[in-house]
C-alpha cells in the first residue's frame, strides 16, 4: 500500500491530544498520516491522491478499546471496525489462556492475518489464570503482551497480588485488576439490594468492589507497583481511587458504557443480556460513575466487549453467562455523555482514543504526522436504534438492545485502508 495517497477533505477534525476541533483535512500516504490541519487543502489536494469527501462530518483518530474478549476472532474484528475501533486489547482468558509466549505470538499473528482492527493481548498475571503462581510476565511482555490481567477473575490472594505488583514493577509493567472480592461475590448474580430482593436473585454487595480496590491500593503503595482497576462501577470504589490518586498512588482506572448508561433496572424481567460482571448497579452509583468521568478520576472507557452465544444467555438468569457485547456501541453510548451535557465532545473522545492508548502504551489514538493512519469518520448526531440482531458480528448479546442512540460510524480506516464504510 506504500505510496498510495489519500486526501480526506471537508472534515471536522477532532484530536483530543492537541485539542484540535476545526474544519480541515488529513493526508495519508500508505500506512501513515503525512499531514493534517485546518489549512491543509487550502490550495488543492495533491493530484495523485485519492480524495475522500467527508461531507463536514467528524474525522478523528480511530478508537482504542482497552478491554475486549476475543471470542470468534473474525467476528470480533468485524464488530470492532463497524464501531470505529481500530485498536483493541484482548483479555487473556482465551483457550488456551495467554500465559505463554507462544500464545501471545499466536494471537498477534492471527489478528494480523485478518488485516482489520489491530489486536493486542493482555498477558496473564498467573499461570492458567489460577491466581496462584506468577506467569512469565517479563517474557510475555517481550513477546508483545501490553499489560497483565487475570481477565474476568480477580487476583484474589493478597500475597500473590503483592508479588505480582512487585515483580511486574521490575520491568515497569502494569497489573490490571478485576475489582471484586470473590468470596463476597460467590453465588451472586446481581447487585445486592431492593432489585435483587424483589427478583429473588442472590446479590453481591457493592462493598465487594471497594474492598478489593482498597486492598490493591495498599499493595500498590507497598510494592511501588503500577495498578489499573478495570471497570469501576461503584461510588465507593471511585472515591477510593480518587483518594489514592490524591496521595500519589500509581493507579488508574476505567469504566465501561453499561456503568454510566444503565442501572440495575435494565435487568427488568430477568433480561440476561443485562447480566454483566461487575453487575449493573443502582442509579446512585451510575451517577457517581458519570461524575468520575467528568472529574477525571476515571481515566478511560473500555467496551468490555464479551461475546456470548445464544445458548449461554437463553437460560434462567442465575445460570446465564455474564457479559455483553460493546464494540459496536462504544462510540454512540460514550457520546451520550456529550449529548446529555456532561462533557465536551473532545473530552469524551479522549476517553476512547488517546487515554486508553497511553495506558496500554500503544502508538494509537491521536492524529500525528508519521503516526499510523488509523481514523474514524462519524456523524455525532445521527440517530439510530440499537438492534442486537442487526449488529455486525456473530454475538448479539447487547445490553443496549432496543436503545435509541445518537452517533454513527461512517467509515473506519486502518493503516490507510478503508476497512468499513456505513451502508456498504
Amino acid at each position, binding site marked *: 500500500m506504500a505510496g498510495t495517497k489519500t486526501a480526506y477533505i471537508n472534515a471536522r477534525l477532532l484530536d483530543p491530544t492537541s485539542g484540535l476541533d476545526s474544519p480541515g483535512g488529513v493526508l495519508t500516504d500508505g500506512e501513515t498520516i503525512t499531514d493534517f490541519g485546518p489549512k491543509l487543502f487550502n490550495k488543492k489536494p495533491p493530484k495523485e491522491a485519492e480524495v475522500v469527501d467527508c461531507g463536514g462530518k467528524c474525522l478523528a483518530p480511530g478508537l482504542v478499546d482497552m478491554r475486549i474478549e476475543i471470542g470468534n476472532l473474525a467476528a470480533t474484528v468485524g464488530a470492532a471496525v463497524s464501531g470505529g475501533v481500530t485498536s483493541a486489547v484482548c483479555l487473556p482468558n482465551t483457550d488456551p489462556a495467554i500465559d505463554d509466549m507462544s500464545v501471545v505470538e499466536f494471537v498477534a499473528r492471527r489478528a494480523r492475518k485478518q488485516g482489520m482492527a489491530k489486536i493486542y493481548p493482555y498477558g496473564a498475571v*498467573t*499461570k492458567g489464570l489460577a491466581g*496462584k*503462581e*506468577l*506467569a*512469565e*510476565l*517479563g*517474557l510475555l511482555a517481550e513477546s508483545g503482551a501490553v499489560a497483565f490481567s487475570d481477565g474476568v477473575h480477580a487476583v484474589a490472594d493478597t500475597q500473590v497480588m503483592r*508479588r505480582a505488583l*512487585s*515483580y511486574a*514493577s*521490575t*520491568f515497569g509493567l502494569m497489573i490490571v485488576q478485576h475489582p471484586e472480592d470473590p468470596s463476597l461475590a460467590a453465588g451472586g448474580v446481581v447487585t445486592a439490594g431492593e432489585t435483587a430482593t424483589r427478583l429473588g436473585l442472590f446479590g453481591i454487595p457493592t462493598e465487594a468492589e471497594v474492598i478489593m480496590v482498597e486492598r490493591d491500593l495498599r499493595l500498590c503503595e507497598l*510494592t*511501588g507497583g503500577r495498578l489499573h482497576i478495570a471497570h469501576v462501577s461503584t461510588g465507593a470504589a471511585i472515591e477510593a481511587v480518587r483518594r489514592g490518586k490524591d496521595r500519589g498512588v500509581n493507579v488508574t482506572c476505567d469504566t465501561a458504557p453499561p456503568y454510566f448508561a444503565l442501572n440495575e433496572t435494565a435487568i427488568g424481567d430477568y433480561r440476561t443480556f443485562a447480566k454483566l460482571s461487575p453487575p449493573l448497579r443502582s442509579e446512585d452509583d451510575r451517577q457517581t460513575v458519570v461524575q468520575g468521568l467528568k472529574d477525571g478520576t476515571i481515566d478511560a472507557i473500555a467496551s468490555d466487549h464479551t461475546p456470548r452465544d445464544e445458548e449461554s444467555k437463553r437460560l434462567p438468569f442465575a445460570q446465564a453467562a455474564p457479559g455483553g457485547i460493546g464494540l459496536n456501541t462504544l462510540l454512540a453510548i460514550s457520546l451520550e455523555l456529550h449529548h446529555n451535557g456532561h462533557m465536551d465532545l473532545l473530552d469524551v473522545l479522549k476517553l476512547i482514543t488517546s487515554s486508553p492508548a497511553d495506558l496500554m502504551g500503544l502508538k494509537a489514538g491521536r492524529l500525528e504526522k508519521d503516526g499510523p493512519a488509523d481514523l474514524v469518520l462519524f456523524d455525532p448526531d445521527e440517530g439510530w436504534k440499537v438492534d442486537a440482531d442487526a449488529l455486525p458480528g456473530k454475538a448479539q448479546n447487547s445490553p443496549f438492545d432496543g436503545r435509541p442512540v445518537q452517533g454513527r460510524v461512517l467509515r473506519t480506516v486502518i493503516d490507510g485502508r478503508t476497512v468499513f464504510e456505513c451502508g456498504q
Partner: protein
Amino acid sequence: MKQDGKDNVHFPHRHLLGIEGLSPTEISILLDRSESYVDQNRRANKTTPLLHGRTIINLFFEDSTRTRTSFELAGKRLGGDLINMSVATSSVKKGETLIDTAMTLNAMHPDVLVVRHPDSGAVKLLSEKVNCAVINGGDGSHEHPTQALLDALTIRRRRGGLSGLLVAICGDITHSRVARSNIHLLNTMGARVRLIAPRTLIPSGIERMGVEVFHDMAEGLRDCDIVMMLRLQRERMDGNFLPSIREYFHFFGLDYEKLSHAKEDALIMHPGPMNRGVEIDTDVADDVGRSVIREQVEMGVAVRMAVLELLALNPEYEGKG
C-alpha cells in the same frame, strides 16, 4: 609466616557472630592472618600443631557439605580435635532443642563451636549459653561471616585491596545471608555495593544498608569490578517469587552478553553450589580468565583456619572455657 598464634596480633572478640559491627582493622586482622594460611595449604605438609589439644565441634542444624567440610579441614590442619554434629530440627520445639543442645555440649568443654542454624539469630542465642568461642557458620537469612571473609580475601589477592571497588551482588537478596555479610564487609572496607535482582527478591529498606538497588542487569553491572552471583533456591522458582527458571535466566542469569556491561576484567564470584543455567551460564562459570569460583573455595579453608586460631587462642579468654 607465623608459626605461633600467640604473638602480638589478636582479635578482640570472643565470638565471630557476624561482620556487622567489625571495624576495618578487625577485618584486616582476620584477612591478614588468613593470607598466611594460603601458602601453608599449598604445601605438601599442611598441618601445624597450633590447636593441639583443643576441641572444635561443628554443630550443624541445617544441611551443609561445603562449609562443614571447609571448617573440618581447617580444624584438622591446625591439629585440633574436631567432631561433627548434625542435628535434625524438625520434630521438637526448636528453642528448647537449641538451648538444651548448647548446655549439653558446653558440659563437654569444647574450645570452639561452629554453628549453622536455619533461624536468623539462633547462633547468637546459643553463644549466650556456652562458655566457649562460637563461630557463626550461617544463621538463617542473617549472616555468614566466613563466606564474606573468604570473598574479601579472594578479591584482595586479585585486586590488591577492597577500597574503591564497585561490587555487584546479583540474585536472591531477600533470602541471602551471604549478601548481608558481604554488604557489611564491603561497605566497611570502602567498596561500593550494588544489588541487582527482580523486585520480589529485594527486601524492603535495604537501601538503608548502604547499597544501590538495580532491577536491570545491563544497568547494574555497568563498570563493576566484581560480579557476585548468589545461588537461587529452587523453591523460589515455583511462581511465588519468580515465574520460571527460563524467565529468571533470560533477565538475571549471568551470561557473556550481560557480563559485557561490567569492566572488561571484572571477576566473577559465586558462593556455591551453582545452578548452572539458572543464575549463571556454564561457560561464564568455567571461564578460567574471569571466574574465581574455585579460588573462593580454596580461600575458605584459609579463612576458617585463621578464624579458628584467633578465637581458640585468644589470650583474653584463654582457659576460660
